[in-house]
């Protein structure tokens, strides 16, 4: 039998699931386990953790020699889109809907390549304006438009 290379990425992904299962058992072993006829809060999670480990280990066996091309991480959208949403979450209640929306659209818009400054500006302006007119003026959601 010829020696095949190990698909490290796939193995790591499967092992991550095994780790989740192990963590579940560890955490839920601190909960009351109960008995079969009167299950405690720990019963179900412990067994889910065990099954997850079994499946995770089988997955390692299944994928260890897979010849899939390495996945490509699109780093720009991967950073800018979550950043935009986090900024939105941080700002919406304090800074107000208008700045939060503008920052969300601007930041997440920077995620696509190439950056088109004019298109991005107009996208931001139009979405922010619509958000203000529709949500604040027309529907009257209980949110501030600005921080003042």
């Amino acid at each position: 039998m010829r020696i095949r290379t190990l698909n490290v990425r796939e193995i790591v992904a499967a092992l991550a699931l095994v780790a989740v299962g192990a963590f579940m058992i560890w955490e839920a072993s601190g909960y009351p386990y109960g008995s079969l006829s009167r299950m405690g809060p720990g019963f179900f999670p412990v067994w889910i953790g065990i099954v997850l480990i079994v499946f995770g280990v089988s997955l390692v066996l299944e994928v260890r020699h897979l010849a899939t091309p390495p996945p490509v991480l699109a780093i720009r959208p991967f950073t800018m889109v979550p950043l935009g949403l986090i900024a939105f979450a941080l700002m919406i209640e304090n800074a107000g809907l208008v700045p939060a929306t503008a920052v969300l659209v601007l930041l997440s818009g920077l995620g696509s390549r190439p950056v088109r400054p004019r298109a991005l500006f107009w996208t931001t302006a139009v979405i922010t304006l619509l958000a203000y007119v529709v949500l604040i003026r027309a529907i009257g959601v209980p949110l501030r438009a600005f921080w003042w």
Partner: protein
Amino acid sequence: MTAVETLATVAAGFEIAFSLEALLFCFIGVTIGTFVGVLPGVGAMAAVSICLPLTFYLDPTIALIMLAGIFYGAQYGSSTSSILLNIPGTVTSAVTALDGYPMTLQGRAGPALFITTITSFIGGSLAILLMMWFAPVVAEFALRFSSAEYFSIMLLGLIAASTLSIGSPLKGLTMVVAGLALGCVGTDLNTGWFRFTFGVLELGDGLHLVPVAMGLFGVAEILSSVGREQKFTIDPKSITLRSLVPTRQDVRDSVLPTLRGSAVGAGIGALPGSGAAIATFMAYALEKRVAKDPSRFGRGAVEGVASPEAANNAAVQAAFIPTLSLGIPGDALMAVLIGAMMIHGIVPGPQFMSEHIDMFGALVASFWIGNVLLLVLNIPLIGLWVRLLAIPYHVLYPAMLFFIGIGVYSIHNNVFDIYVVVVFGVVGYFLSMFHYPAAPLLLGFILGPLMEEHLKRTLLISQGDFMVFLERPISMTLLACSALLLLFSLRPLLKSARGRSPTG
């Protein structure tokens, strides 16, 4: 319920469905559905999640009519970009591109679009008929179910959802279990014990469905689409009403495939746990097998677009059967719909069919109206939808993110839910990168707490005796089906574990 009673229910339903408000929101729903269906990178799941907060102000029946409209509307729209651009609008029309795009290259985009719309209508209509007749029967049958049967049928549903799909069944099963794990987060119902909350107050009542779904399907989809934007070269003026008219031969070739596709779609869709995507693949495979000349497939065979499109619409409509009559979602989309119904204080299941029979009637009636509306929206107005494809993605996705952000926030007025979206967006992105399906994860997450509850109840009554699951005939049948399905789908893996070299 007899057939006459069912007809009377639906007839009464038309009275509600023809009210101005119902018509308006049915129209809005199917229009949004077509819109997101046409656009690649925007799924029906994200659309429903975004529209969910908007429906809080509506009557539950109207809200359901609108949300359901998005579901089946998306099936109509999704074939458009498959055929014209070779980019499926949603997964369920990936198969349509196989023969639809070659038809476009041959200058026959018009007939392809026309035929998919008509077969969508036929598939949808046949499945609605099936649903009218079947859903009340199932519900009546299910009234006799105890916790043991519910546990077994949910188990079957989860196994079906993860193994009857495209890709590795083991990855699907693992995702189901991971979903069950997510479902454990929150307060234990019986004891009030905090599980996996790590002192975070917001996790006390568990992870909320909508932010998890929006992250896994909305944000993750955006993350993987932004990287690979494509330039569309399509001339909207080339799709005129006249160019739509199919030839006599096209029509003759599509009749039987449409009927076969509808049957496959309705059958698969009605099973709990299996969705429209797999139905289209099966319908296509069936056509290829029965065809006199299978080599035509992939080179613009009209059967290759007629059958899968009939199948996906039939499957989407038939998926309402287990959803409404058992409370068990057919696929991840239905799971979100169940979540929506629960937010409106309606619990789907056998009781739904007896207590809210008027709602069932109205919903079925609205399906008929919605499908006719879609016919109108998709044939004379096709040029409009084609033009939509010109909207660049770099304008679209920031807008979608805004809708996701504000939509999630407004459900509970809680910033924490936006962070949940971010986390599950990243998780979903990694999952799709390694070809782990996200739909079984969501199904497990939703059914997990219910399964645990039914398991507890069953074993409480049987005093810890597991045999109760095998002693009740319905439960035993369901478990036997589950075991067979599991064995069948894991067979290749078991073989390779015994030392024989795997072929993959």
